[in-house]
């Protein structure tokens, strides 16, 4: 080891010791102080009851499959619609001007309303028209609400991706005699989509969580199932169990998105 490496090793040891010590102090404080709170025993019994956790977990996991199913059929629709809106807004042709206006309006409106509100309005409002089965299904209108809310975000991210592709790529493509359409399809879009995959992953992680909001209009998915257990057992632990199940999906997905994003940054560095 040369002089510099010895110095750096010493520094690393020092930082490691400080980090360990401060973490231990914080953990000890949490462990010692929280039980001192006057309501701790009650919170422990109603939120962290191991028996309730073990009894409700399998059913909750099963209910979570419904969340996953809703996610799996909503996500592709959102991706396709988002792409269409982004293209409407990126295309310069005057014939498509109405579509461009529509794209802009759509994005403004549905980005500006809370998800829950869209779910209530669409989920209760449209079946209220007295449609026959199966067209009054909360699954259909819940999905529509999610699609309406999420495709504008995907569209905006894609549009930023399209605009981030350097002008010189377009110049190269059209000076080869390619049409605007082929230039978009074969040169601009593939690069733009690749560039915004990480950002879109974050949107889809948020979608996975917001699927639970459909519980407000009927489907017995995990959040509603946890609510049923709460009423049945007079205990909040099922909510904690539901949170654990969500985290098991979202933490790895978020980490993966962060990894992709870092890689994209380095590649462009």
């Amino acid at each position, binding site marked *: 080891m040369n002089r510099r490496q010895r110095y750096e090793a010493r520094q690393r040891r020092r930082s490691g010791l400080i980090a360990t010590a401060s973490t231990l102090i914080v953990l000890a404080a949490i462990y010692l102080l929280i039980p001192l709170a006057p309501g701790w025993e009650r919170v422990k019994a109603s939120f962290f009851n191991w028996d309730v956790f073990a009894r409700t977990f399998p059913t909750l996991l099963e209910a979570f499959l419904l969340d996953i199913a809703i996610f799996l059929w909503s996500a592709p629709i959102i991706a396709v619609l988002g792409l269409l809106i982004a293209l409407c807004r990126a295309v310069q042709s005057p014939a498509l001007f109405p579509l461009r206006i529509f794209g802009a309006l759509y994005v403004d409106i549905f980005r500006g309303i809370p998800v829950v509100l869209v779910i209530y309005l669409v989920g209760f409002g449209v079946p209220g028209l007295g449609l026959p089965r199966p067209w009054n299904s909360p699954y259909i209108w819940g999905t529509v609400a999610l699609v309406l809310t999420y495709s504008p975000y995907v569209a905006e991210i894609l549009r930023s991706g399209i605009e981030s592709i350097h002008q*010189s*790529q377009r*110049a*190269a*493509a*059209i*000076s*080869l*005699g*390619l*049409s605007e359409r*082929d230039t978009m399809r*074969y*040169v601009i879009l*593939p*690069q733009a989509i*690749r560039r915004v995959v990480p950002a879109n992953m974050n949107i889809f992680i948020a979608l996975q969580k917001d699927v639970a909001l459909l519980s407000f209009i009927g489907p017995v998915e995990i959040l509603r199932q946890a609510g049923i257990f709460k009423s049945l057992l007079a205990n909040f632990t099922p909510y904690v169990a539901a949170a654990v199940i969500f985290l098991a999906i979202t933490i790895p997905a978020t980490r993966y998105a962060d990894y992709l994003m870092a890689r994209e940054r380095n590649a462009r560095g």
Partner: protein
Amino acid sequence: MPEAEFSPVKLALKGVTKSFGPHQVLKGIDMEIAAGEMVCLIGPSGSGKSTLLRCMNLLEPIDDGYVYLDGADISEPGLDLRLIRRRIGIVFQAFNLFPHMSAMDNVLLAPRRALRKSREEVMPDAEALFARFGLADHMNKFPDQLSGGQQQRVAVIRALAMRPEVMLFDEITSALDPELVEEVLDILRQLRADGMTMVLATHEMQFAREAADRVCFMDDGVIVEEGAPEAIFANPQRERTKAFLKGVLRRQV
């Protein structure tokens, strides 16, 4: 070269002007380029060389004046520029390869999409071009796996795959490391031997002097002086040309 005198005019410009905002970049350019001729545009940065090239294939719409290809006015507003751009290839300073495609797919894209040919139809042609310019082993690599000189050669092949009648080169060696310049200039020499009609904006004075049929010195949006390379380099007439050449030649020699 007596036959050169009778070569028909391939590309002609008449009174071409172009402004970006309040700044007039081209102030009335008249030019005739004969079939098979190699013309070098020289001049300081910002003199309008690049803009002039980009106006020749109408990548930049011109404000006023005319551009003729084989005697036909191609600057008439409303023409289908795709048909014209297929006949005039251009290669850029920064290569502008499509980074998400292999070298081969870069070359095949335009013949397949714009000329509606099948992959099988255009493949032999493309392979022959890669082989001819020393890139047979690199056809399936992606641009970021190639050196600057190799990328620029792929960009030339990509333009040639459309079988253009005129080739424009916009300072294609300026972004290259010095040791890679020669391999790209070699391509130009080969194309010249083929009789390709070419217009180059370049800072390679030695190359312009040795290879060009004609050199045009541009400054501030006008062609100040033009003539055979020997005449321009050895015996410039105008003060601006003298000052420019004195500056660059001192650096390059």
